[in-house]
């Protein structure tokens, strides 16, 4: 099967990756196949710092290259890890969810335990526009 290798410059958490194709190789999956963390058998070694991402048409999945190649029984074995956030994007983007935190759609009045607050406070005084007179008047209260 054909394996297209890319250099992925994006944070793994991005659902849209910035990819640069670097090579195409043929390879096969080592059995038993595990869709989350398959082992790819290649006929040549690759540099996982450059070939850090790949697409395998046969399973229609993008994978992170997660290990250095190890030579075994005539093959270079490379561990992969399923990039589910990319592979399932078209499906989950049609869903709705309760959003816990968001970059742009948020409510700033919700308590945020991550928000850093200094352990000191800004003390201000606000004076009302009118007070009692600075002068005193005398009252004499009498019978009559």
């Amino acid at each position, binding site marked *: 099967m054909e394996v297209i290798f890319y250099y992925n410059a994006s944070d793994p958490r991005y659902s849209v990756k910035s990819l640069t194709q670097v090579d195409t190789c043929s390879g096969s999956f080592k059995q038993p196949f595990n869709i989350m963390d398959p082992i790819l058998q290649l006929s040549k070694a690759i540099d996982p710092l450059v070939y850090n991402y790949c697409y395998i048409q046969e399973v229609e999945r993008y994978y992170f290259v997660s290990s250095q190649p190890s030579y075994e029984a005539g093959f270079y074995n490379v561990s992969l890890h399923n990039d589910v*956030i990319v592979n399932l994007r078209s499906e989950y983007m049609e869903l709705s969810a309760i959003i816990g935190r968001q970059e742009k759609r948020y409510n700033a009045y919700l308590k945020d335990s991550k928000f850093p607050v200094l352990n000191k406070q800004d003390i201000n005084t606000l004076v009302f526009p009118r007070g009692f007179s600075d002068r005193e008047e005398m009252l004499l209260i009498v019978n009559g």
Partner: protein
Amino acid sequence: MATPTDAIQNILQGNIYLKPNTRGTLALLSQESAQNYTYSVGTLGCYIDILPYDVYDDNNKPKYNIVFKNGNFVEITLTETISGQDVTGTSISKKFNVVADDGTTVLNTYNLGSETLPRTKVVSGDTVYNEQWYYSLTYWAQAGMRLYSNSVPSAWSSWEHPRETWAAYLGNSNNVIMNGASTYTVTESHFIDFLASDESQGTKYPGEHSTTGGGEGTFYAQNDGVPFAHLPTVQPIDFGFTSIYLPTETDMLNISGWLWSDDFTENIKMNYISPFDNILGIALIPIDRSLIKTENTFFKIGNVTNNNIRLDKIKSNQNEITQYIDYPCGSLNIAEYWGNFIDYDASYSIFLPFVGFRSLRTDDILNGSIEVTYHIDLLTGQAVCEIGATKEDNVFHVLYSFPCNIFYNIAFSGANYMSMYNQQLSATSSGINNLVSSIGQIAGGIATQNPLGVIGGAVNLITGQAQAKREYETAKPDIGRGGNSGGNAGIFSQRTPYIIQCLPIGQAPDKYNELLGVPSMIYEALSDLEGYTEIHAINLDSINASSAEKSELISIMTSGFYI
């Protein structure tokens, strides 16, 4: 409650069953009665046992599930048997035959290796739960039929028979008789109905008596305005017994000179022991005389008028309120500083002349305006300070009310001075007691009803309602800013009310929203979002992916990703 035999028949006949694809099992025999397992030849024919096993395969799917399709019973039979002992703690080799609905066709055989049987907990006579089933999702209650006998009924070729055969064999007797030789009486306590996570029948777990409720709110909050109090409409100075003058210092010299003169005492002594009995009070007030409605008249005390002394006297006119005055101090707008939740972690206190420091509830005043006014009785000095607020709903409410006294009383005789001193002492003592009893505001209010009040600053009360504190504030003690400052002490305190605002200082780093997000709690289509997102709850049922992929997707979504 079914009899034991009924229970067996019900099980065998499939009358007790779970909803399709729900977890749990049918019934079990108590393992608490170990002697029940010491069977001799030809004792109990069968019993239903429950064994908890880890029944999930690598793809997180249950390996062995008791499935009842359309109400039909698919029997799972444990073919490996042990006998003559308490099975608790026993290692058995596990092998299940799944038998088709015809009761004979073996659909599948599962060799499960060996396992030590855990002890089953009996909670009560007919309720059971096992900690492992209850607390661990990786365990799945399994039902098996275990056969105990070394003798097969003559009509049978083996112990494995469809449930109908067993039902017929057991008959309707409460005594299960095997081979006619030994009998074993199965009592009700040996059978326990076990319903685990069966939504249709509720749960029989601890807490089963919890009830549902709520959700019937009106979503309507009545919000009537509460204006400042109005002044009384009847004033004692209209009754002719008392008068209030506003003398100048020169006037007071003239008056005192006259009061001590022979002339005056000759006229008055017929009725009074001392001329000062006609003087009810002399006080200073910090109010401009232009605000007091007066008329200039000859000074009169008792029934004697001095036609040589003219003074300003508070009008005595039944058509006009003159003894009481309103003294508004204006309003302040209290705006949010940060525009987020930490504004509401700020604390506010207010200094009120003749009252002292008081705490304000942040939610009462923030993002609105606050207004202070005094209602004052010029005859006694008693006053009420009211604080009202208008928030974004534009409704004005009086939210706080503090009694106080604004007079600085002046002693004019020995008896009068001692009386004032004693009251002062009493009020101070009361203030100290208030501190000890830690009910500062309430007690302080009571104390200030005394005309002489409590000496300000002498008592350090822990003021105010406790406000909800963020973690960073919890280590900081709530320090009172002062005591009551009514009465004579009030004249030495600040005369203009002011608010002390303690603002938290946020320190959100740059890119905070992009890298951490901000709490959202909206239900939204993911396609309508962009940027950093953490999912609080989502249902991935409709996604076409393996369970492992869904699990990882959930994990990533809840810990944060970029759409």
